[in-house]
């Protein structure tokens, strides 16, 4: 057999990692590893539950963990996050309880979004993670507006706006990057280029040389980043947030990564992906790359790895159990929150 491509190792010495992550780089990496394993565990469990009909839908982010964890760890509490389809992990890393997210996935009575959105569309207001719609791209303008408001009120903080490669073709991408640039708003545009928009490969999405190159259209800096390299993503997100906070305006970061699962539970990628896609993706598995590096540098042994996995398994199991034990949203909630309660002038 000509075999699958070998795992691409992270190219850093410990000193180089320290230079990028700062003096507390070891706990940062351990924490990152734990979050990634949790995400993997959750993705695997939820995909299984979806097949069993216990949740209605699931959109995995397998392969995108490095970006989500890095964004969660590199951002500060005062920052805001506008997610795309696959950034739920950012909310968890920023402190949204796993069990609350499970309530959302099961659309039960304790879902902060009251069971109204499809799974994977959580609301996590307490960590400034904004509710999303399924409409591709719309959140990018919202991020710019929020960034404008932060600056307008002289508040600290910046905004992370996430979206996929497909979303770069949306109206909102164009409007938001243009407005963000003209206003010099404190926002970081984070494009997770997983190389697919459902069945459309990124090479058919645009004729641009790269997605990062699109920044030039708006007079903005744009950088391509290896999105399966936690260290690189962390450093880039932190630097771009810093620039945004200090009045330096927006940056477009393109995280190149690999969608390692189907688009969602409703999708069959064998219809359109080349046969070697999965193998290529595995060679860039962000979790395996980080684990390999940690192992090579004696920061993670098999026992520690097993302990993390067990801990994550039980956390996910507990969360799922709690959610499955919760009643569905109360029927009255169906007509609530359309307008503010007690809003002026209702006569019926």
């Amino acid at each position, binding site marked *: 057999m000509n075999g699958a491509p070998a795992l691409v190792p992270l190219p850093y010495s410990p000193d180089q990692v320290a230079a990028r992550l700062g003096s507390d780089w070891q706990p940062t990496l351990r924490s990152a590893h734990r979050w990634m394993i949790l995400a993997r565990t959750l993705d695997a469990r939820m995909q299984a539950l979806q097949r069993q009909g216990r949740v209605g839908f699931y959109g995995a982010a397998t392969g995108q963990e490095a970006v989500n964890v890095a964004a969660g760890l590199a951002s500060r509490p005062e920052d805001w996050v506008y997610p795309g389809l696959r950034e739920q992990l950012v909310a968890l890393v920023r402190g949204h309880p796993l069990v609350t997210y499970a309530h959302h996935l099961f659309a039960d009575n304790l879902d902060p979004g009251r069971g109204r959105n499809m799974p994977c569309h959580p*609301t996590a207001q307490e960590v400034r993670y*904004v509710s999303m719609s399924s409409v591709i791209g719309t959140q990018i*303008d919202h991020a710019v507006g929020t960034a404008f408001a932060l600056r307008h009120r002289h508040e600290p903080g910046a905004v992370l706006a996430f979206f996929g490669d497909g979303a770069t073709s949306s109206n909102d991408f164009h409007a938001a990057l243009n407005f963000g640039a003209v206003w010099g708003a404190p926002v970081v545009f984070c494009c997770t280029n997983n190389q697919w928009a459902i069945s459309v490969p990124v090479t058919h999405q645009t004729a641009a040389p790269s997605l990062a190159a699109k920044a030039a259209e708006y007079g903005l800096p744009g950088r391509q980043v290896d999105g399966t390299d936690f260290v690189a993503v962390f450093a880039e997100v932190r630097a771009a947030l810093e620039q945004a906070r200090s009045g330096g305006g927006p940056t477009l970061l393109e995280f190149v990564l690999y969608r390692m699962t189907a688009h969602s539970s409703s999708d069959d990628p064998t219809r359109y992906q080349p046969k070697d896609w999965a193998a290529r993706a595995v060679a860039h598995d962000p979790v395996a790359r980080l684990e390999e590096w940690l192992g090579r540098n004696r920061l993670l042994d098999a026992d520690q790895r097993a302990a993390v996995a067990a801990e994550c398994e039980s956390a996910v199991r507990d969360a799922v159990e709690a959610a499955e034990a919760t009643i569905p949203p109360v029927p009255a909630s169906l007509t609530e929150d359309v*307008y503010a309660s007690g809003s002026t002038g209702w006569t019926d």
Partner: protein
Amino acid sequence: MTELTLVQAVNRGLAEAMRADPNVVLLGEDIGLNGGVFRATEGLYKEFGEQRVIDTPLSETGIVGTAIGMALNGLTPIAEIQFMDFIYPAFDQIVSELAKFRYRSGGQFPCHVVIRTPYGGGIKGGLYHSQSTEAYFCHTAGLKVVVPSTPADAKGLLLTAVHDEDPVVFLEPKRIYRAVTGEVPDGDHRVPFGKARLVREGTDVSLFAYGAMVPPTVEAAEALAKDGIQAEVVDPRTLVPLDEAAILASVEKTGRAVVVHEAARFCGFGAEIAALLAEKAFYSLKSPIARVTGYDTPFPYALENLYLPNADTIAHAARAAVQAA
């Protein structure tokens, strides 16, 4: 009290809101130095500066989309769409996002944006500077839809919109921006949503009209009075929420209803009023409900006067309703 035109009243309302709260910002096209193409924001750029009266790039998507983000983070943005005909690039943001944010987030991310836009015909604007498409917005749960017809209501409803908690589509009848003047209370004057205005009392037939259709409807009522027909004129002022009680009470009294709007008839707002009357005032009706509206065509340029309802066509329908029973 100050005597103002409708557009001046809008301007005063905006200034009032901005003085009262530094979190109120305006954004739109040509609203800064130029004062808006209808001058609704005249003088505001000078008073409040370019960080609060923001001339945006030419993108309605961007205007409404960023306004939403501002609202989520504590500002009260008032977006101007230069003409209602140009609101469609923002339709996605209004319908998919603005209207649904509160609901989908379980109430955690309410989104209070006011979108002002001049609407309606009669200014020789052809297909794209004349439309009256309030029905699209009324059909979307989560939006409030407001249409003033007098200067006092323009200011009062605008200030209510600014202090409301929900998204408001605020439609300004540009045809009567300068054609109507009236006394407008100074200061923080507010007109509640969901309360119709009884424009003229009558006993024989109820005429329902809003926005730029109110003046010709009143004119029709005056003409009818000369023939001994006492027409009541009711302006709902806010289409969502709708003052159903006032509409029902009027028809319970007169037994006859004529609904007037300049928008096309089919699935227009008049259909909602007609349905309300059929459902809840059926036994009070003496004659069929009539609608006097624009035709089910795009809005024409050269022949716009033949497209729009006017006092004669309204009076004609009212007479027919009275003569029918």
